[in-house]
């Protein structure tokens, strides 16, 4: 059974000159316990898609979607209250910058306990015990004493661990990690990814890993979707995608990785202020993208 189904999701930002669609007809399905990687350059709509799934399209963005269902429940039909209950418990999300993702005014323990008390209706003592256990589970040393620490007293990696602890506190079925390692240094990156992998495996939790780092995705995700200019251009299993990319953009993206880069350059993205929907189609007419097949296949997907 599909855990999360997204069909034809678009997010448009109205503007007097041209309506821009930051996310343009994205369809994604995530099965239970699956790990999906979403890659793409900055501004390709990765994060916005995930925020839209969580019901957080920033003002003045407008969301249109044919079907947005989580565990067969239509998210667009839920009331705000129901959706919030679902959001904190069954779906969780962690963000790029751990230093700003925690409220600087409260201790990490307080924030973790608060989540448990609200969503799991635990009493203070049980929540505290559970919070300490969670902190230990995400690999924070001296967890009990760290409960009283403020976010600014912890390092970025520690804060990201706390964020992950908060996210998994209510045993979610789906964890969306929006560039969870971008703000961390490389050694910590590896630890956090390992932690996410372990948690995903042990709990049978579905994981959507959003990243612009191909290597991170290659290591972590079984299936990968490549986003470009608001659309998914290619979506396949990771081995196939990295081995033999079908879409020229994927190939260009792979070729642009620092370790592979010899002479190839990532083609410049077509101008932003084109009429919506025209961007990727017009891409072939952009001289920077010479050599792309014409007409450009919008998606070279394999089920």
């Amino acid at each position, binding site marked *: 059974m599909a855990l999360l189904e997204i069909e034809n999701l678009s997010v448009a930002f109205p503007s007097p000159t041209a309506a821009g669609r930051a996310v343009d007809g994205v369809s994604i399905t995530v099965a239970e316990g699956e790990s999906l990687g979403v890659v793409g350059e900055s501004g390709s709509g990765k994060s916005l898609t995930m925020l839209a799934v969580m019901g957080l399209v920033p003002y003045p963005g407008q969301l249109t979607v044919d079907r947005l269902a989580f565990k067969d429940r239509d998210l667009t039909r839920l009331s705000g209250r129901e959706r919030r209950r679902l*959001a904190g418990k069954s779906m*969780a999300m962690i963000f790029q910058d751990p230093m700003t*993702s925690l*409220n600087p005014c409260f201790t990490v323990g307080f924030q973790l306990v608060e989540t448990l008390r609200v969503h799991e209706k635990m009493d203070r003592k049980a929540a505290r015990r559970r919070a300490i256990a969670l902190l230990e589970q995400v690999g924070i040393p001296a967890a009990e*004493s760290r409960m*009283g620490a403020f976010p600014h007293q912890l390092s970025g990696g520690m804060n990201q661990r706390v964020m992950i602890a*908060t996210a998994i506190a209510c045993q979610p079925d789906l964890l969306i990690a929006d560039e969870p390692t971008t703000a961390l240094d490389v050694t910590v990156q590896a630890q956090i990814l390992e932690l996410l992998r372990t948690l995903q495996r042990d709990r049978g939790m579905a994981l959507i890993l959003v990243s612009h780092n191909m290597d991170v995705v290659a290591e972590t995700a079984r299936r990968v979707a490549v986003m470009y200019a608001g659309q998914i251009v290619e979506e396949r299993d990771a081995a196939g995608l990295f081995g033999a990319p079908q879409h020229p953009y994927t190939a260009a993206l792979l070729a642009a990785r620092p370790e592979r880069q010899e002479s190839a350059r990532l083609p410049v993205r077509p101008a932003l202020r084109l009429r919506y929907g025209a961007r990727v189609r017009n891409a072939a007419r952009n001289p920077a993208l010479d050599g792309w097949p014409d007409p450009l296949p919008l998606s070279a997907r394999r089920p």
Partner: protein
Amino acid sequence: MTAEYLDPPLSAPSPPPYPPPLAGEGRVGAVQEFWASFRANHGAVAGVAVIATIVLLAALADLIAPHSPVLNDNAAFLKPPFWQDGGSFTYLLGTDAIGRDMLSRLIYGARLSLLIGVAVVALSVIVGTVLGLVAGFFRGGVEIAIMRLMDILLTLPSLLLAIVIVAILGPGVMNALLAVAVVLLPHYVRITHAAVITETAKDYVTAARVSGAGTLRLMFNEVLPNCMAPLIVQATLGVSTAILDAASLGFLGLGAQPPLPEWGTMLADAREFVSRAWWVVTFPGIMILVTVLAFNLVGDGLRDALDPKLKR
């Protein structure tokens, strides 16, 4: 001698791998740090001392004041302070035009002035914070309506606006209090609005939203605590403005009505005796000056202590 440095005794406890943490360590540390940087500002500490004295005077007015603030002594009109010819120790700071003891009136006046200052600030901070939060959270029409209204209030000279409001409501302490609160309101709305906009852009707000926090919870539990520092400073400075504005209204006959011993009203009553009896004007003036100065000094000290960018 050097050996001691090179070979520390084995029995010496090795430092724990992590700093020994205590529950609430952060909070206590923050208070200590705040006090350390606040204490460095001598003016602010002096301000606190002055305010404490005035608060004590106001609280213990019934015990301290030698006379009633409203009863007059028909035998002693415009008596000078005790150190001048004609003064007596019965009326230490002299009497006013109808024979009321200046010292007692000043002491009771502290009560009224502090009450006005604190009540006005409490009122406008609460209303202003809520309006600012609403404006910051509900962008679009609501924000425009609230912020433009505040802009309009700010364009009017504050005293003039207060006079207009009092003219509509009628003179009296309560109405003067309301008028001054309205005058001060835009400052708090703007500060909160600006702080809310900065804070809501941060990830922790999105994170809270993602974990299912409702709008009210976001506003008051997540964002508001992070906007408190500038509000505290502005509130302290606001007390002095409130006292000053209330005194001005009193001086114009629109604030506290006689026989209430309000400092501004006392000044107004004494206008005609300025040349004959300096003490009836000077002492209320000094009280207003000292109180306002004290609050301003404390406000400055708070700003320095709470704003990390201004720390030396």
